[in-house]
């Protein structure tokens, strides 16, 4: 290798050095997807003894309502329970077909509407830990057809307290990142029962490139999970878990 050639190439390297490091962004930011859910939950008192799967009568605010008791769960007369009426929507997702929600890993007999993800039947959950699980949820409505999902598993974990209130969010609003979208600013706000104040909310998303975990504390009946995508873009989410502990 001659010195002149070495100098020539070295000079080329230097010129290129001065041009390195430029960045361009291909996707317009803000391709987020609105998320809206409201559970309309209430507390009630059981009027019948049922070991699920089955229907139990519950007194909710002086009115007798009939709801589904999840498989393997027993309620007895006078027992305080949480009552999730038909029409409740947890995260406003859509499904390929009406999809059954599982409670604590067991069948509930309650289905979510494929159209808007709302409960098609009333659901009764006794005091104690509760985990709602559903498969194949898609959150739609972003610009340019952006969506999140279908997500293999969506889980909402919480607790039904002794008074029949729960730490399951009363309302979820905000925007979530679509698959692979530039979504800085994606934030969801959870409205919680005052009994959940001081508890920690954790959003955990397992996706094609890893796992994102965001935490927030419930204060004044509200928890805000912000900048969901600040550590990387969520792509092809397989699990989405919201845990209140």
């Amino acid at each position, binding site marked *: *290798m001659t010195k002149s050639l070495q100098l020539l190439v070295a000079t080329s390297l230097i010129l290129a050095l001065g041009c390195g490091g430029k960045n361009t962004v291909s996707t317009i930011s803000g391709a987020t997807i609105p998320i809206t859910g409201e559970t309309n939950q209430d507390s009630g008192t059981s009027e019948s003894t049922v070991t699920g799967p089955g229907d139990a009568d519950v007194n909710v605010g002086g009115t007798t309502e009939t709801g589904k008791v999840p498989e393997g769960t027993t309620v007895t007369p006078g027992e305080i329970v949480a009552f999730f009426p038909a029409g409740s929507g947890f995260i406003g997702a859509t499904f390929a077909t009406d999809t059954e929600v599982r409670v604590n890993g067991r069948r509930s007999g309650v289905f979510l509407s494929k159209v808007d993800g709302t409960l098609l039947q009333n659901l009764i959950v006794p005091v104690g830990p509760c985990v709602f699980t559903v498969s194949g949820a898609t959150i739609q409505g972003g610009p340019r057809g952006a969506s999140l999902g279908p997500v293999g598993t969506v889980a909402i974990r919480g607790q039904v307290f002794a008074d029949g209130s729960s730490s399951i969010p009363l309302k979820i609003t905000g925007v979530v990142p679509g698959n692979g979208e530039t979504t*800085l600013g994606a934030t969801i706000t959870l409205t919680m029962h005052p009994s959940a104040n001081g508890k920690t909310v954790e959003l955990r998303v397992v996706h094609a*490139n890893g*796992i994102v975990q965001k935490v927030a504390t419930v204060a004044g009946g509200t928890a805000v999970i912000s900048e969901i995508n600040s*550590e*990387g873009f969520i792509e092809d989410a397989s699990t989405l878990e919201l845990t209140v502990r």
Partner: protein
Amino acid sequence: MMTTKTTLLAATALLVAGAQAQDRVELASDGRDRSIGLTFGGLGASFGGRSLSSKYLKFDIQPVKQFKLWFGSQSLDAKGKEDPATGNRSTFDARATEFGMRYEFQSRGGAPFGVSYIAHRSGDGTFEQTDGSSALYFGPKTDTFEVDHEGWSGSYSRIKAGSRSASVFGVGYAGKQPLKAKGWSFLYEGKLLFERPSGTVVNPDGSTRAMARLGLEYGSPEWGSISLSAYVFPGGIPYTGTPLSGFTSFFLYEPGGVADDLRTKTSATLDLRVSLKASF
């Protein structure tokens, strides 16, 4: 983009290096055909309130004159800026392994022609935010094929990181200039990397990154060497082709936080390396 001052500094260094270029010494040159070696060292940097440190250990064996194998492991610990409210710093930790082999084709009376394959396998990277949030990134895989001749090298790397990937083409020159003092040498290296990522949001059409290395080495063919080098990354750190290849491949995920600006602003690291060898 790098500053004019930094560009001129790198330019001057490379011009001097280019003018004084000598053949790169890669294999044992003490007249014996076989050797084993152990290299260990650390690498560190601090910039903009962030810090980065890495430790590595590498074993190599040269069973015949033309062939060399090596296996190494490396860890990385990066810390972000201090949170003014809590005093805590976000962190990123990962481990990576490296496996490589190189074969030299001898030419009659000429310099050898080397062919190498290098595999980097990164473990999952963990990013912890100061507010308790975290992210885990699946470890990328990088495979690099390289040819070299008389100090010049050309490389092709394929990186697979989750749903994302990149092809990186590299061209560079590395050399070693003996100094007057016995056993001392001046090390230099310049490399350009043309990156073609797939699935990324930033730089979807590719970009160019560069690396320059200047260093001092003391050693002998009998026992090995000790070296101190400065690596400069004008305009940002490349995805691969650097001593941090097991970790820089995580940039394909376009993380924020602790990694902010590392892809876009000039940075530099110091590398201290001790290589011990025994020939037989």
